[in-house]
């Protein structure tokens, strides 16, 4: 966990007080909506179709049990008893009243959580691997570097009014769980041949209206030079990025228009001028931040203890274990994913009671720590293997042990037309119906890893471009239609999906997805060939022929 200092707390209390005052002035009419809107957006407050929505950042996806319990309290007291975890390591409350927002924010601020950097044209909260600090794959804890960036970028005067919002993600394992290639800046932390720590720097990735996979502009940046290099990127962007047209203002457009090489050149030139300056990170500064991350007091334990071996005789437990439990860097411990995708429920939603259960379990078994991943699931990063049977029983009783992580029913979906004022079409009910069709666990296990991502409009909050199967809601003559893409992926081999064919109406989507999956099951080279690999090998044509012949 990260220990916030007094400055952070005082700062948050001040921000809440400011917002309380702004809300009072808005309610009294002293501020009009045009004046108030940017202020509320800066604090993560949106107006949706039928209510205000509060978006809370969860810096690098790390939450304490205490914080999660407070979120449960806010969901219960100020909302309708649930919250929605998003793909940006945020949580959203969907029904908060403007009048009560300052109270809710104060309650959250007391435990160090807030909506700053969840909105507006600033550097947004930096995201990273939800397994950070726990996975044996990583070369260093990426949260150290996320925190260094957070401190640097929070309210940086020069970077609060960028041409557009700016998103940074960091991965430190060979398998990228942070989707760094579809962020404005992606940082791949690794060691070079000499064993030194550094970043590969990618720029210009992003989804939305004009999706791009990020391009590498530097293979190795010594880690201590991170801030000066980011500053150089921001300066080049600030100088050349387009402010005249919001659709062209993202860094991805600039990189695309001038080319990655020219962009890299401009950054390097800028960097040369500033790299020896104040942003150079000293060993002391890095050690100071590193020291604020408090790691669990792990016990000396053996892998596969007797309790676990015994429990694995239970088929339901064994199924969950195989699906939701992952290797840990410390012997005798595991990382546990908690699926927020029970079949038929809105993806990513958790009730206040479920949040309390998870917080209690984190206290009892998980060193008080919970993580939020970009797949809209939660994670307990430090569970002793001997405690897994008891943990599972408690999760199962709370409806939190669906063993479908990375299966076809583990769908990412944006709020879509059920909540969002920008939507063309619904996303959540589409996800629910697909999940129901694949509810049979043997069937979905047989299909293997398959990511379905759904967005209700071109803004791509549901990451449809990078779903193995992507579904995008469009509008045709006032009706909901959906475009299907195949072959997208968000990991280290990130690529955008290919359009399968003409858009189909709402009712036809689940059947079409079943046809796509049946086609895969027929065409795959064997059970070890994943859906994404079959699409890569054969292209979309064979799928198109089958699917559109049937509809």
């Amino acid at each position, binding site marked *: 966990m990260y220990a916030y200092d007094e400055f952070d707390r005082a700062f948050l209390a001040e921000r809440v007080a400011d917002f309380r005052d702004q809300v009072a002035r*808005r*309610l009294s*009419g002293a501020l*009009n*909506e045009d004046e108030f809107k940017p202020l509320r957006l800066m604090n993560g407050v949106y*107006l*949706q*179709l*039928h*209510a*205000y929505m509060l978006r809370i950042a969860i810096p690098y996806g790390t939450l304490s049990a205490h914080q999660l319990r407070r979120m449960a309290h806010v969901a219960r007291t100020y909302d*309708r*008893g*649930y919250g929605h975890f998003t793909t940006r390591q945020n949580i959203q409350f969907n029904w908060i*009243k*403007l*009048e009560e927002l300052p109270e809710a924010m104060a309650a959250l601020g007391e435990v160090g959580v807030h909506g700053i950097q969840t909105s507006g044209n600033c550097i947004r909260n930096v995201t990273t691997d939800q397994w950070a600090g726990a996975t044996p794959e990583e070369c260093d804890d990426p949260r150290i570097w996320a925190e260094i960036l957070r401190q640097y970028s929070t309210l940086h005067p020069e970077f609060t009014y960028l041409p557009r919002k700016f998103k940074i993600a960091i991965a430190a394992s060979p398998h990228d769980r942070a989707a760094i290639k579809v962020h404005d800046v992606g940082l791949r932390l690794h060691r070079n041949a000499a064993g030194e720590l550094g970043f590969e720097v990618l720029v210009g990735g992003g989804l939305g209206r004009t999706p791009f996979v990020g391009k590498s502009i530097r293979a190795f940046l010594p880690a201590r030079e991170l801030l000066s290099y980011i500053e150089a990127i921001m300066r080049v962007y600030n100088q050349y990025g387009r402010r005249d047209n919001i659709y062209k203002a993202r860094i991805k457009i600039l990189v695309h228009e001038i080319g990655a090489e020219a962009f890299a050149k401009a950054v390097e030139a800028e960097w040369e001028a500033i790299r020896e300056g104040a942003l150079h990170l000293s060993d002391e500064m890095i050690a100071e931040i590193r020291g604020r991350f408090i790691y669990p007091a792990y016990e000396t334990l053996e892998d596969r203890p007797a309790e676990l071996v015994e429990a694995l005789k239970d088929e339901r437990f064994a199924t969950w274990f195989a699906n939701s439990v992952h290797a840990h860097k410390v012997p005798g411990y595991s990382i546990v994913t908690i699926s927020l995708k029970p079949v038929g*429920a*809105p993806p990513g*939603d*958790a*009730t206040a009671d479920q949040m309390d259960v998870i917080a209690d379990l984190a206290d009892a078994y998980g060193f008080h720590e919970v993580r939020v991943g970009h797949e809209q699931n939660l994670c307990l990063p430090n569970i002793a293997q001997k405690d897994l049977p008891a943990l599972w029983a408690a999760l199962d009783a709370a409806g939190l042990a669906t063993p479908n992580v990375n299966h076809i029913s583990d769908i990412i979906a944006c709020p879509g*037309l*059920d*909540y969002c*004022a*920008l*939507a*063309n*079409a*619904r996303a*959540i*009910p589409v996800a*629910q119906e697909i999940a129901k069709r694949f509810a049979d666990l043997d069937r979905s296990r047989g299909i293997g890893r398959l990511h379905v991502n759904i967005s209700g409009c071109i803004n791509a909050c549901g990451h449809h471009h990078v779903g193995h199967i992507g579904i995008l809601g469009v*509008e045709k003559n*006032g009706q*909901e239609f959906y475009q299907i893409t195949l072959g997208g992926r968000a990991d280290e081999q990130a690529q955008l999906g290919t359009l399968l064919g003409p858009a189909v109406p709402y009712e036809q989507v689940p059947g079409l997805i079943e046809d796509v999956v049946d086609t895969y099951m027929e065409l795959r080279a064997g059970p070890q060939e994943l859906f994404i690999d079959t699409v890569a090998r054969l292209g979309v044509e064979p799928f198109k022929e089958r699917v559109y012949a049937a509809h």
Partner: protein
Amino acid sequence: MASPQQQKLKVHGPVAVTANRLTDGAVVWRTRGDGWSADLADAIIVTTADDAIALLAAAQKRDIDAVGAYVAPVVIEADGSVAPGNLRERIRVAGPTFELPH
């Protein structure tokens, strides 16, 4: 369903002016006497673009009761009652189309 605020105002059939209540974001409808109601049955219904523009302009004069006013389609049922005119408006009135977590 592109955001109605961005659409050119074309009126085919009955429409009403709708917005979100400032205090809590709830969906409200423009009523007689320059007021707002959470009940669509209270809404003023007009059928021409000129009337809709006038109704909208009046609604936008004061943004302290309701925000984001726009013109939304409605349908008049056989029994004379008024219902939202498209899926977006139905969702605004009735909430999400699935069971909320509880």
